[in-house]
C-alpha cells in the first residue's frame, strides 16, 4: 500500500457512488432485532426490480443512532431518515423517494409529536445539537467494506503520520488535542502514550479495551459494529507512536456482531497492507489480534483485562506498576478504550488544536452517550463536552414519556451515580460530573422517572458489584456483600437507622481500601442516592413505605406498622 493506491481506492469508490443515491439501512444490533435485515433485502430487491440500481446503492450500515425508531433507513446525500421501515414501506420509499425524488412525509423520522418532521434529519431535535467525531461516518458507510472507509478519508491519518511525523510529534499532537480517556476515568491520552513511549528497547503492546461492561452502555458496541476500521487505524497510529508492533482488541463475547465485523475488517486491512509488515512501505510493522472476553465486568479494569488476555482469571493486581511500565507479559503496554482510539484518526487529520476547539478547556472533544431508560428517544448520541444534561435529556432525548416526571439520570453505570433534577444544568465534563458524586463513565446514561425507587436502584447496582467482584481483596469481596444485605433489608422494610449508619460507615471504607476500580467505585450509586434522595431511604426505614411503589415490603414489617 502506498499513497497513490490509497487515493486510487478512494477515487474509484467515490466514482462508483457519483451521482447516485445511497440507501443506508441500519444494521446495528437494535435495528436488526426490529427486522432491519428483511427491510434491507426488500429494498435491494425492489431497487433491482425497478431498475434503479444504476442510480441507487443499497447498503447495510452501522448504528444511525435513533435505536428506538428502528429499522432506520437513511437516504444520502439528502440526509433524510425514515423510521420503523417495514419491507412494504421500503417499496414505497423506493417508488417515491428513489424513483421520483418525492419525500414520503408519513415515514419521516420524527422526534416530537405535533411538529412537522424536517426532511433533512440533521435539523431534527435529536440530531441538531449533536456533533459527530467518533460517529462521523458510522451510519453512512458499509462497515464491512474497507473501500467505503478509505473513500471517506480512512487510513489517511495513518499515512500522514508515517510519512511526515516522528513518534514524539504524534504524541505531541494527541497532547495538544487534550484528548482524555473515554473509558471513564479521563486520564490524558497523550500522557499515557508518552509513558509507554519512554521505554526503549522493549517489546510493547497496544491493547484496545472493548470490554464494555456497564449495564446500560452500548457506545463501544455501536462503534465496533458500525466503523471497525476507525478503531484499527487508531490502534495502528498508537502503535507507531509508542513503538509497538502488536495490538490486541479485547471484545465481550456478548457482542458477536462486533467480533464478526472486526474479524472482517482485520482481514481486509491485512490484504490491503494496512496491517502487517511494512505498512505504507515504511519500516512500521503492526498487527492486531482479537481476544474474546467471557463475561466478567471486572475485566474492564486494565490489569484484570491483561490477566484475561493472558488466559488467566481476570483478577486485578495492585498498581503501580502501571501497565505502561509492566503490562501484558510484563511488557510496557498501552491500554485505551474503543472510543478513545476512535477519536485518534480525526484528531490527527484536523490537528490537535482544531480538535480541542470543541468541548471545554479541560475536557476537549465530544462524548458518545447511550441514552436509555425512561426517555422518549433512546439511542446513541454524540455531543460536544460542556453541553448540559438538560439539553441531552430534554432536547436531544425528547424528555420523559407518558407524562411522567423526571427523577434522576444515572451515568457511569455501577461505578457512577444518580444526578437529580436540581443539577441538570451542570455541563457534561469529567470534573463537573465528579463533583456531583458520579463519573463520566464510558457513556451509559439511564434516565429514571418517578416510578423508579432510588433505594432499589442502589440495591440493583450493589447486587451487580457483588456478583462481579472478583473476590481477591477483602473490602470488595465481603464489603459489597454486606452492603447488599443491608440495602436488601432496607428495601424490604426491615432496615433500621442503625443499618443506615453502618452503611454510611462501610461505603467510604470500601471506596478507600479496595484494590481496584470496581471496589473503589462500587459504593458510588449508594452514596450518590443517599446524597440526593435520602428521604426515600428514610421512608423505607421509618415508614416501611416505598414512595415509588417499587419495593415489596415484608408482611411482618407492615404488621408492625399497623400495630405501632
Amino acid at each position, binding site marked *: 500500500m502506498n499513497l497513490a493506491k490509497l487515493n486510487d481506492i478512494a477515487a474509484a469508490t467515490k466514482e462508483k457512488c457519483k451521482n447516485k443515491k445511497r440507501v443506508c439501512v441500519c444494521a446495528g444490533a437494535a435495528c436488526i432485532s426490529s427486522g432491519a435485515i428483511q427491510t434491507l433485502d426488500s429494498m435491494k430487491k425492489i431497487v433491482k426490480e425497478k431498475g434503479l440500481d444504476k442510480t441507487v446503492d443499497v447498503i447495510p450500515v452501522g448504528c444511525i443512532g435513533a435505536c428506538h425508531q428502528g429499522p432506520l433507513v437513511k437516504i444520502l446525500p439528502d440526509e433524510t431518515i425514515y423510521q420503523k421501515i417495514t419491507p412494504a414501506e421500503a417499496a414505497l420509499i423506493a417508488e417515491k423517494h428513489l424513483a421520483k425524488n418525492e419525500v414520503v412525509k408519513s415515514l419521516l423520522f420524527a422526534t416530537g409529536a405535533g411538529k412537522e418532521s424536517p426532511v433533512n434529519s440533521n435539523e431534527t431535535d435529536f440530531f441538531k445539537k449533536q456533533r459527530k467525531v467518533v460517529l462521523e461516518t458510522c451510519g453512512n458507510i458499509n462497515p464491512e467494506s474497507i473501500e467505503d472507509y478509505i473513500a471517506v478519508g480512512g487510513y489517511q491519518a495513518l499515512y500522514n503520520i508515517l510519512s511526515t511525523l516522528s513518534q514524539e510529534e504524534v504524541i505531541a499532537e494527541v497532547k495538544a488535542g487534550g484528548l482524555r480517556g473515554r473509558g471513564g476515568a479521563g486520564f490524558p491520552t497523550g500522557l499515557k502514550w508518552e509513558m509507554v513511549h519512554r521505554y526503549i528497547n522493549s517489546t510493547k503492546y497496544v491493547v484496545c479495551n472493548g470490554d464494555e461492561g456497564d449495564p446500560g452502555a452500548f457506545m463501544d458496541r455501536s462503534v465496533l459494529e458500525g466503523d471497525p476500521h476507525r478503531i484499527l487505524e487508531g490502534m495502528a497510529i498508537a502503535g507507531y507512536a509508542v513503538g509497538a508492533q502488536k495490538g490486541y482488541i479485547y471484545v465481550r463475547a456478548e457482542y458477536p456482531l462486533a467480533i464478526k465485523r472486526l474479524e472482517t475488517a482485520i482481514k481486509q486491512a491485512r490484504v490491503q497492507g494496512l496491517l502487517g509488515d511494512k505498512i505504507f512501505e515504511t519500516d512500521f510493522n503492526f498487527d492486531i489480534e482479537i481476544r474474546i472476553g467471557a463475561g466478567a465486568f471486572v475485566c474492564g479494569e486494565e490489569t484484570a483485562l491483561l490477566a484475561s488476555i493472558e488466559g488467566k482469571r481476570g483478577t486485578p493486581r495492585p498498581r503501580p506498576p502501571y501497565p505502561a511500565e509492566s503490562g501484558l507479559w510484563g511488557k510496557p503496554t498501552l491500554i485505551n478504550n474503543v472510543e478513545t482510539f476512535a477519536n485518534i484518526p480525526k484528531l490527527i487529520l484536523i490537528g490537535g488544536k482544531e480538535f480541542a476547539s470543541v468541548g471545554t478547556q479541560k475536557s476537549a472533544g465530544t462524548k458518545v452517550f447511550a441514552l436509555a431508560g425512561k426517555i422518549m428517544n433512546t439511542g446513541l448520541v454524540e455531543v460536544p463536552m460542556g453541553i448540559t444534561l438538560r439539553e441531552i435529556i430534554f432536547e436531544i432525548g425528547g424528555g420523559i414519556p407518558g407524562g411522567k416526571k423526571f427523577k434522576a439520570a444515572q451515568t457511569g453505570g455501577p461505578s457512577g451515580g444518580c444526578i437529580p433534577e436540581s443539577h441538570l444544568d451542570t455541563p457534561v465534563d469529567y470534573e463537573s460530573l465528579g463533583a456531583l458524586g458520579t463519573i463520566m463513565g464510558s457513556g451509559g446514561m439511564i434516565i429514571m422517572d418517578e416510578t423508579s425507587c432510588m433505594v432499589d436502584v442502589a440495591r440493583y447496582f450493589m447486587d451487580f458489584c457483588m456478583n462481579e467482584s472478583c473476590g481477591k481483596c477483602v473490602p470488595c469481596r465481603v464489603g459489597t456483600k*454486606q452492603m447488599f444485605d443491608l440495602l436488601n433489608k432496607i428495601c424490604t422494610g426491615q432496615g433500621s437507622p442503625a443499618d443506615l449508619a453502618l452503611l454510611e460507615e462501610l461505603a467510604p471504607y470500601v471506596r478507600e481500601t479496595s484494590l481496584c476500580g470496581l471496589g473503589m467505585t462500587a459504593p458510588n450509586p449508594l452514596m450518590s442516592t443517599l446524597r440526593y434522595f435520602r428521604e426515600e431511604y428514610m421512608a423505607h426505614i421509618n415508614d416501611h413505605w416505598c414512595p415509588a411503589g417499587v419495593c415489596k415490603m415484608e408482611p411482618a414489617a407492615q404488621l408492625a406498622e399497623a400495630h405501632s
Partner: protein
Amino acid sequence: MTPLAAPTTTILVTIDEKTYSADPGETILDVCKREGINIPTLCFLEGVSTVGACRLCLIEIEGTRKLLPACATVVAPFQKVKTNSDRLKKNRRMTLELLFSERNHICSVCVANYNCRLQDLAHEVGMDHVRFPYLFPDCNVDGTNKIYNIDHNRCIMCTKCVRTCDEVEGAHTWDVRGRGFESRIIADFDEAWGTSPTCTLCGKCVSVCPTGALWHKQSVQNNMKKSPEMVSELTAKRGRKG
C-alpha cells in the same frame, strides 16, 4: 528498560516522621520489617509472590490520595509514609470485622486457637466485636486427604496455600474457584483433596495457612502450630524471592 536511570544509591524515606535509608527496589514493608515498625499483614508471605489482597498493610503516602499496600509499594526517594494513622487503624478494624463476618471463625473450637494470625490481628488492632451479621455461607470440610484436612469455613482466601503450592512446591494443586463472595479454594478440578494426583503431601500449604483452615489430622483444638517461616527460609536458601 527503565526510562530514567534507576537510582543505585541509597534512598531516604520518612516513615512515621523518622527517616530511614532503604535500597532501591525494596518495598515499604521490607523497610518497616527491618526497622522494627509493625504493620499488620495477612496475605503477605516472604518467599512467594505478593498479591496485595488483604488490604491490612495499607499505608498513607504524602501527596497520594490512594492508600497503598506496603507489601507491594516500592520505596521512592523522599517518600513520607504514615503507617499508623487513625484513618488506617479504623480501616484495619473494619477489614477484620468483615473477615470475621464472612465465614465461620469461632475461635474456642478451632484447632488454631491461640496460634492464629487472624485472631492475633484482631487483638492487635483492637477489633473486639463484629457489627455485621455473620454470613455463614455453605462451606464444606474436606477430610479425604490421609494426613491433612481443609475446612473452608475457616478460610480467609489469603491464597498463601495457592501461591506456596505453585511457586515453592511446584505442584499447583490449589487454586481459586468462582468469584467474589462465592470464591473458594479448590484442589484440581474442584475434587476431593485425597484423590488429587498433583498433591505431593508436602504439607507446605498447611504450614503457611494463617488460620485453622488447613490443619494436620493429628492436631486437636488449640494445638495446631503453623510455621510459615519454614517456606520463607526455604525460598531464601534457594535464593529467590517472589
